[in-house]
């Protein structure tokens, strides 16, 4: 019994991270139809910035940890927004309608940015001191308080994005731009600006995820890429562009990893995950919550 609770708690812990990462991708890939393989590099950038700023402010200046973290968080968002803006303005702007083109562009970016990070930060993993130390036990399952906070923040961000996409004018215009640029323009939607906003929001989400993850996991210059593949799977099984789908998909993958990893072998669980995805997509090609295309 206690074991099942622990495994479920693990599912939530893992799942919240996946969902957080997948959200930005759902917006950029699912809603705007840009396949951004470099999405992980936004995540990585934020995490790296957090470690640098923390190192400087805690070790050099001696500021309190929580305060340093707040500064680091803001800095991370700023840096990623700048990167996102540059990348969009000089790159993605030109391949908005082109699935393959945006894919290749993002691959180029991935190589470029990862190489740059490696030169700036070296291959050594970094980590930051615990912002909120301590463990907690819920229904017999234990986890760190940081993880709990992370889960709550993830839930809040998810809710926020849901409202943004489905209940606001910006959300409406984002979806419209993704479906038919020309028709969107005919409704008076300034599609270039809307696409930029969408891209920046996506990047900011990745940055939030990265900055939050830096508190619980070691940061390397390729950390984002490890999440990327799973995030793609998550949003496709959830249904492209569906925020609820991303939640469902993220939790499903986490469930497989958590229980599969326990009862079988983590490596087998990974294999099982891929097989399951293929089967699911064959049975329901548009994903759990997606609409059929066309």
């Amino acid at each position, binding site marked *: 019994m206690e074991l099942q609770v622990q495994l479920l708690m693990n599912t939530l812990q893992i799942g919240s991270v996946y969902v957080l990462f997948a959200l930005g991708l759902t917006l950029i890939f699912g809603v705007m139809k840009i396949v951004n393989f470099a999405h992980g590099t936004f995540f990585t950038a934020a995490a790296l910035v957090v470690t640098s700023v923390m190192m400087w402010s805690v070790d050099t200046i001696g500021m309190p940890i929580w305060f340093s973290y707040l500064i680091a968080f803001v800095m991370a968002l700023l840096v990623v927004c700048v990167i996102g803006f540059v990348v969009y303005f000089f790159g993605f702007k030109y391949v908005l309608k082109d699935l393959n083109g945006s894919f290749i562009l993002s691959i180029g970016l991935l190589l470029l940015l990862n190489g740059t990070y490696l030169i700036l930060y070296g291959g050594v993993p970094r980590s930051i001191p615990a912002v909120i130390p301590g463990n907690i036990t819920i229904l017999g399952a234990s986890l760190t308080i940081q993880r709990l906070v992370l889960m709550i923040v993830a839930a809040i961000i998810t809710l926020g994005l849901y409202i943004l996409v489905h209940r606001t*004018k910006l959300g*409406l*215009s984002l*979806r*419209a731009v993704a*479906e*038919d640029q*020309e*028709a*969107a*323009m*005919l*409704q*008076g*939607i*300034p*599609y270039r600006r809307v696409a930029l906003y969408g891209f920046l929001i996506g990047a900011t989400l990745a940055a939030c995820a990265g900055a939050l993850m830096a508190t619980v996991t070691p940061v390397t210059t390729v950390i984002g890429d490890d999440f990327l593949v799973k995030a793609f799977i998550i949003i496709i099984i959830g249904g492209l562009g569906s925020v609820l789908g991303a939640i469902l998909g993220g939790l499903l993958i986490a469930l497989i990893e958590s229980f599969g990893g326990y009862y079988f072998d983590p490596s087998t669980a990974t294999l099982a995950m891929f097989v399951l995805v293929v089967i699911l997509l064959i049975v329901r090609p548009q994903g759990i919550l997606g*609409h059929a*295309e*066309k």
Partner: protein
Amino acid sequence: MNQPNVILSIHDLFVSYSGVPALEGVSLSVKRGEITTIVGANGAGKTTLMKAVAGLLTPLKGKIEFQGEDITSLSPAHTVARGLTLVPEGRRLFPTMNIRDNLMSGAYVRTDKDAIQKDLETVLDYFPILKDRLHMPANSLSGGQQQMLAVGRALMASPRLLMLDEPSIGLAPTIVETIGNIIQTISRNGVDILLVEQNAHMALELADQAYVLENGQITLTGKGQELIQNDKVREAYLGL
């Protein structure tokens, strides 16, 4: 050229598709309070003209003025913001978005929440079939229902000038009548209309002013009722 009773004036417009001319020196104007129509054979350039006015195409030469302002090189987002809305040929809906969102996207440039809500109700009264389907994706509608949605979406913009490119395409006779009535109603409510119709009969019946476009040039103009009587027009456009 700045006449106060003219809402849209087009002067000597040239448009081409990668070198092939589609419009060759078109001039026309839409007067306030009137329904203006353009009739012409297939490929005459009617759609091209409307797209150029809306800002989807950039003219080679010529000038387009809307409410006295030069809008020749404005993008659609800006023309729409100034009160000029186009129901494009081929509907151009947002296929996987639901019907409500499609309609609301029409009201993108507006901020008057209450009026938007009222207009939504009006549109749904015009096309009751859409009312039952508000949460279905647009691509589950039949062809004619989609056309209704396209017209409805444009009405949601509450434009100053409404341009309709073959709005009655694929509609049942009763609905064609409805469209005709809608055009008259909104015209009376102060929206100026530029109409292109395959159903030339209907168009000329409705129109105050009519133009005949042939091979990218205006060849004939007059009151709608006059052109219905014109032999050339009868033969070419009113045959069946």
